[in-house]
């Protein structure tokens, strides 16, 4: 009967409860979406493997390294494999169609990335076609590409009109895998560079290294950078995760702001909810006084009010969470490749439930204190 009393009380003022509930739904939804956006931002780093290192030019990522580093890197003890890639930065039809493009040493590159799942026959076709491309499922779907299609890219860093034939489409091993990348052959890029920009031939943007023992990452990184100390292009080696996070760091302030907004939303709804509960309890003081006169304890009255507040908050949260999934999906699709990895994590849902619980509990503190400590005679006189 206690539960019934709580639920019936909660639904007593349909309009007021409805409005408060709507507020909670919107707040929990916004909180979940903002949290998902922040996570998506860090997702690149999350998806990385700790057994891979990235070596780049110590001055800046925009400066290349000589191709001749490859055998030297391979010779360093603890390094299990080496591949390399160049950022291409081409434009597909218009600037709006952004997706990352890499020219990679294909024979070695995909051995280092087991999370890219490709059909064996497609991989073979790709490796055999000098102008072939291997693309992620997400961009293939977005632009309607099929195997055999010709994709033109307008080079910016490497000016000119380039054409690639799609030879394969890769899938991600799990939700965290970036499925929006475009790969083609480094050899093709290098041949063209030899003809058109000879000074830029035989250079590499980043080296990717696989380790025999990920625990030795720090030690091996130091060894690599020491090897190229005082050479023409000094190197900076770090784990793939640290490498990715260095990109995120540039936008850290924005992320902090987004996170702050998500908490402000919760604070606002907390105030709204507290106001609703205060109004509700003020109207019902005579009822709470009656309960106390009948011998019910202050604790009982407190439980009634906390129960009602938490029930409303959790019902709102349930609806808000249910809406988060489809809306996050629609949002992720609309954002396209800006957030290659966009999904509602379990952690986000847990935080949504937690936020709702805190809202419900905090909102009930002052009203329940008032009802629990009300003087019975005065309370009975108050007219609801």
């Amino acid at each position: 009967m206690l539960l019934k009393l709580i639920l019936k009380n909660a639904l007593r003022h349909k309009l007021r409860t409805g409005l408060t509930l709507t507020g909670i739904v919107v707040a929990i939804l916004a909180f979940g979406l903002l949290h998902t956006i922040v996570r998506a931002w860090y997702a690149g780093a999350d998806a990385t493997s700790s057994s891979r290192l990235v070596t780049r030019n110590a001055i800046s990522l925009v400066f290349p390294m000589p191709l001749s580093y490859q055998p030297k890197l391979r010779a360093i003890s603890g390094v299990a494999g080496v591949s390399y890639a160049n950022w291409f930065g081409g434009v597909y039809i218009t600037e709006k169609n952004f997706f990352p493009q890499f020219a990679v040493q294909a024979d070695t590159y995909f051995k280092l990335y087991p999370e890219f799942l490709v059909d064996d026959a497609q991989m073979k076709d790709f490796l055999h076609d000098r102008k072939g491309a291997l693309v992620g499922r997400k961009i293939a779907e977005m632009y309607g590409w099929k195997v055999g299609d010709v994709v033109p890219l307008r080079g910016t860093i490497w000016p000119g009109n380039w054409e690639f034939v799609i030879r394969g489409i890769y899938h991600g091993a799990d939700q965290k895998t970036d499925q929006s990348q475009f790969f083609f052959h480094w050899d093709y890029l290098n041949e063209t560079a030899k003809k058109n920009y000879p000074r830029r031939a035989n250079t590499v943007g980043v080296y990717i290294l696989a380790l025999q023992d990920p625990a030795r990452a720090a030690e091996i990184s130091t060894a690599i950078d020491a090897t190229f100390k005082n050479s023409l292009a000094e190197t900076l080696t770090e784990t793939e995760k640290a490498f990715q996070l260095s990109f995120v760091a540039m936008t850290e302030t924005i992320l902090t702001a987004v996170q702050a907004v998500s908490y402000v939303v919760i604070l606002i709804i907390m105030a709204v909810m507290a106001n609703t509960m205060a109004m509700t309890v003020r109207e019902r003081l005579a009822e709470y006084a009656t309960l106390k006169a009948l011998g019910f304890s202050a604790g009982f009255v407190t439980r009634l009010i906390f129960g009602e507040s938490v029930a409303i908050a959790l019902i709102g949260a349930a609806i808000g969470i249910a809406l988060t999934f489809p809306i996050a999906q629609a949002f992720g699709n609309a954002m396209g490749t800006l957030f290659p990895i966009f999904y509602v994590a379990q952690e986000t849902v847990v935080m949504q439930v937690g936020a709702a619980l805190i809202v419900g509990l905090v909102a009930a503190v002052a009203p329940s204190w008032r009802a629990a400590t009300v003087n019975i005679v005065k309370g009975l006189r108050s007219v609801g």
Partner: protein
Amino acid sequence: MPLIMPLIEIRNLSKAYRRGDQTVPVLAGISLDVEAGEFIGLMGPSGSGKSTLLNLIAGIDKPDAGVLRVGGIDITQLPEAALADWRAANVGFIFQFYNLMPVLTALENVELPLLLTPLSRHERRERAEFFLGLVGLADRMTHTPAELSGGQQQRVAIARAMITDPTILVADEPTGDLDRVSGGEILDLMDRLNRELKKTIVMVTHDPKAAERAHRLRHLEKGVLTDEIESPV
């Protein structure tokens, strides 16, 4: 000197309210005995302190001074929580405006005080049905207070007051909000509870029709008890 201890024993009970720097006395040294099984009426002009006295007897208000023993226990000395338990076990409340829980049905309202007892759900239900039947509302169990007339609501309230088999029933203007016919029915019911179930009743009223039913009437005037009139029963 009565041989048997009175059920309610009030000695030099006083209470005052402070308004700013002056004190307004509401009860000034009241002494009164109520025997078990009595039906006593308290009358007096508005503001004379009737409700205040009744609230003290019911244990929902505290006096400034004096002794108030019910069944031998000085309830003025009980701490808050113990007093709440005492009320649950010993007092049945009948209010002028019924004070039912609007979201509960008639049956649930009657059952409510039993949540404070160790009775099982089934036993509670059975008892509530019995008492709702006793006040003549067996066919209104699932109605909410809003679906009942004033007289019916007051009967639900009486069933709620009776369900714990309290030592005393306190009623503050039980007919104050009712028409003559419903008021008469409520008074008949209280009369029966007193005669047949031997309930001790303390009732505050303005209504001469209600006052007629009391065995004994006491008059309050400016916080002091005046003449005593035996009713012509």
